[in-house]
């Protein structure tokens, strides 16, 4: 049966990432003798990486649609300086500053989206230009100076949930969010199971569902306790809250809405999408504009955390975000990737960075290790796809799956398909991009 796969999450590629993340955390927890999973370190980890993870959410949509965005760091820096200058010169309140930033980000995204969608210029070129343009614009607006931001704006990047209610020894709001999350998990697991049974589709057994609820619930409660017991004045960070909301929102959009489907369709097969009535230009404009908005948000969170906007903010962010997306299982050829995968990929990089720092390993070696991890993760994907398998974990559990192909459907050879290879286990092929008929594997190279 498929119980082990269901227990661990369903989609093999995401599953592999989550397992890798957990292994990595346990490794560093042991290697740093307990320094990794302390409240302060976990809070710090989130605060210091939330803006990259937010970028990764936008970036995965761009990459699923078959593009790339190199300008996100520059756009973030440009928005940061515009907002900081506006608040300083015109005494804008913090909320108006945030609004202004989002609008500026949307306009920057719209500008680049226009060139990509309607002028048919490859996004690589458009955003390479944007990287220069917006970096220069940042330095022009701020005269290459650092401009500080007011205290209420700083909450966005360095604020925490407030203490309210009775003194329980924990941060009450953090606890509340943790409990709500556990309740949501229970409800959604049970509803999913009921739905699958009603549809007559494959579904997990009761014990598997129970184990899943207990394991996921325990992890959430543990993380909650870490956030709720930090130094006085710290708790679950505001930026983490924003991140969480975005993950839920974009996870829903990408998997459950018409627009989300269309993004996958455009990246998966542009010709087929167009002939199915998908307005591909609008979709391209949309993902690029959305990337601009999320870049703006990331830039503002960073400025708020750093208490000031400077001329070299956001340098190299695009690479961190892109790395997160590819570690999270997306393909450069488009059509493949998930929001949750990108965030988990970003967390893998963050934990790696953090753990190596805690171990006292220098920035030089850290970069080398991060680069090799990225290469290894993607190489592993490519290798497995060429073998028609989805991931190492998918491979490990393959033996536990019953063969679901009926013997009569051994794919009669069509004229175009000589010597067809045995395809991947059908039910697990969400992330498999191996095409048995042409023996083609979607390469990790830019197709534009």
């Amino acid at each position, binding site marked *: 049966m498929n119980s082990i796969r269901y227990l661990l999450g369903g989609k093999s590629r995401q599953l592999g990432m989550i397992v890798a993340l957990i292994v990595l955390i346990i490794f560093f927890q042991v290697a740093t003798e307990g320094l990794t999973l302390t409240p302060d370190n976990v809070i710090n980890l989130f605060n210091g990486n939330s803006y990259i993870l937010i970028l990764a959410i936008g970036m995965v949509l761009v990459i699923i649609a078959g593009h790339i965005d190199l300008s996100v760091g520059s756009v973030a820096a440009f928005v940061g300086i515009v907002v900081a200058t506006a608040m300083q010169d015109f005494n804008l309140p913090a909320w108006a500053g945030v609004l202004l930033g989002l609008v500026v980000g949307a306009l920057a995204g719209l500008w680049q989206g226009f060139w990509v969608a309607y002028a048919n210029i490859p996004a690589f070129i458009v955003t390479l230009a944007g990287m220069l343009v917006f970096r220069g614009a940042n330095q022009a607006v701020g005269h290459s100076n650092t401009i500080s931001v007011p205290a209420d704006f700083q909450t966005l990047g360095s604020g925490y949930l407030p203490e309210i209610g009775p003194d329980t020894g924990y941060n009450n709001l953090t606890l509340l969010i943790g409990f709500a999350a556990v309740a949501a998990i229970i409800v959604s697991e049970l509803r999913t199971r009921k*739905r699958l049974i*009603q*549809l*007559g*589709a*494959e579904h997990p057994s009761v014990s598997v569902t129970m184990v899943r609820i207990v394991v996921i619930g325990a992890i959430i409660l543990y993380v909650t306790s870490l956030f709720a017991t930090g130094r006085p004045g710290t708790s679950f960070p505001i930026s983490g809250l924003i991140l969480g909301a975005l993950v839920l929102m974009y996870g829903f959009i990408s998997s*459950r*809405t*018409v*627009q989300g*489907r*269309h993004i*996958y*369709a455009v990246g*998966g*097969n542009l*010709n*087929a*999408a*167009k*002939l*199915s*009535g998908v*307005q591909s230009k609008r979709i391209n404009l949309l993902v690029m504009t959305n990337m601009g908005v999320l870049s703006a948000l990331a830039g503002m969170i960073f400025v708020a955390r750093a208490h000031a906007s400077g001329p070299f903010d956001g340098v190299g962010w695009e690479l961190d975000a892109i790395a997160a997306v590819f570690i999270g299982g997306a393909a450069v050829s488009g*059509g*493949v990737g998930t929001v949750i995968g990108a965030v988990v990929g970003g967390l893998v990089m963050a934990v790696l960075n953090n753990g190596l720092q805690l171990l006292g390993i220098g920035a030089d070696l850290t970069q080398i290790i991060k680069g090799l991890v990225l290469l290894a993760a993607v190489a592993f994907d490519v290798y497995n796809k060429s073998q028609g398998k989805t991931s190492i974990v998918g491979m490990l559990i393959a033996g536990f799956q019953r063969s*679901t*192909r*009926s013997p*009569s*459907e051994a*794919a*009669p*050879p*069509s*004229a*175009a*398909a*000589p*010597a067809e290879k045995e*395809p*991947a286990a*059908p*039910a697990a*092929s*969400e992330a*498999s*991009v*191996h*095409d*048995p*008929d*042409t023996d083609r594997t979607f390469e990790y190279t830019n197709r534009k």
Partner: protein
Amino acid sequence: MRSIRKEFGKVTALSDVSINVHAGEIHAICGENGAGKSTLMKVLSGVYPHGTYGGEIFLDGNLCEFRDIRASEAEGIVIIHQELALIPELSIAENLFLGNEPQRFGVINRDEVARKCQELFARVGLEEDPETLIKDIGVGKQQLVEIAKALNKSVRLLILDEPTAALNEDDSQHLLDLIVGLKGKGVASIIISHKLNEIEQVADSITILRDGRSIETLDVIADGVDENRIIRGMVGRSLESRFPARNHNIGEPFFEVKDWTIRHPAVPGRLVCKSSNFFVRRGEIVGMAGLMGAGRTELARSIFGRSYGTYLSGTLIKNGSSLELKTVKQAVNAGIAYVPEDRKVHGLNLLDDIKATTVSAALNRISRAQVINSDTEHKVAEEYKTRFHTKAASVDTGVSTLSGGNQQKVVLAKWLFTNPELLILDEPTRGIDVGAKYEIYGIIQELAAEGLGVIVISSELPELLGLSDRIYTIFEGEITGELPADEADQESLMRMMTASGTPRTQRITEEHTS
């Protein structure tokens, strides 16, 4: 060439082909699409190296075992493919000597290039500056450059695959004259062409291929060959009963295309559809016969939301009122569905599973406020899977793992879920094995019986004859004839498809009122 065999996996492309070309003759090869003409020429020119095919090739009595194209070119055998192998961004001179540059110590000898250019241009009758870029000259002249390139390689046997397919009449005539002229200078040619009138005009002998076999070789003069004789040789097989029984339920005409004219998207002035007129009745299966490149797909796609070409003129009329379909979305909403020719390029996102594919053209039918109801999605996909007997473990199965026939069923389901009134099927059974074909035919007939108007575009004449109620023929973007299927046979269709027979368009417009 003696007893040539060539197999691709389990598919036999050539089973037993022998052909004998004499020095200084023009030898035509005729056959339907898929008869094996192009494969044979690739064997001869070394594209498929020695050892990958069976049989023997002799040149001047010597056994040849070409390892690659270079080896065959060294012996003076040069092939000019249908898709010209010129580089658009390079000049005529650069293309002419590509891979064969007159040089000394790696530096190109420009005087030598200029001198040779002049000589070759004179031989093929090309008047152009050698520095002109290939993209700036017409297809006709590009064809001449290809021939000049072949002459530069001291060609003895020139193979031309559909040389005039993309040319207008003047350019075609010039090219044919040139080939005849070359014959006088001792260069033999093999011509593959669908234009039987041209073949009749220039060929000395004709070999007919059918189903991967050489059927016969005719001497044009001695045997008194005409087009009818060639067509008989090309089709000469009986119709088997490969079609399910049919329930006819034909109603009134409801969809009509009038004066439809479409320009090629990139080449100004080249029309891919010329004032086409046709109509479809409810419950009727209408066949569109035409050779590859005749403009069948272009016609269909231009009607389907102008997804091909540049619209010049024409009207679409459905249920008595005219339609303006500028985008695919509008076409889908107007109840038109188009199942494309190439499943993998235009029909499917191979990353998707069955259920996502089934609903992908009509997401609005299963969503509210842009949110997709995945339960409905699952149910819809399950319904079509049961109805069409799609063989797959579940609707969560990835479409890339399905066989061609089952993929086609999923694509059909995708388009039927848009609730069309008019279903256009472009080569619905290409690359599908016989069993699955029968099932697809059954589905098409069932849909017609339910009242859908169906247009079937196909290169396989037996398929059209067996499936359709009425057949239009298309040649070079024009509808050249219309026949009820029970009055048509392969010969009459082939004649109209090659535009050699009856005066065009006379039968069309008359017999219907809408």
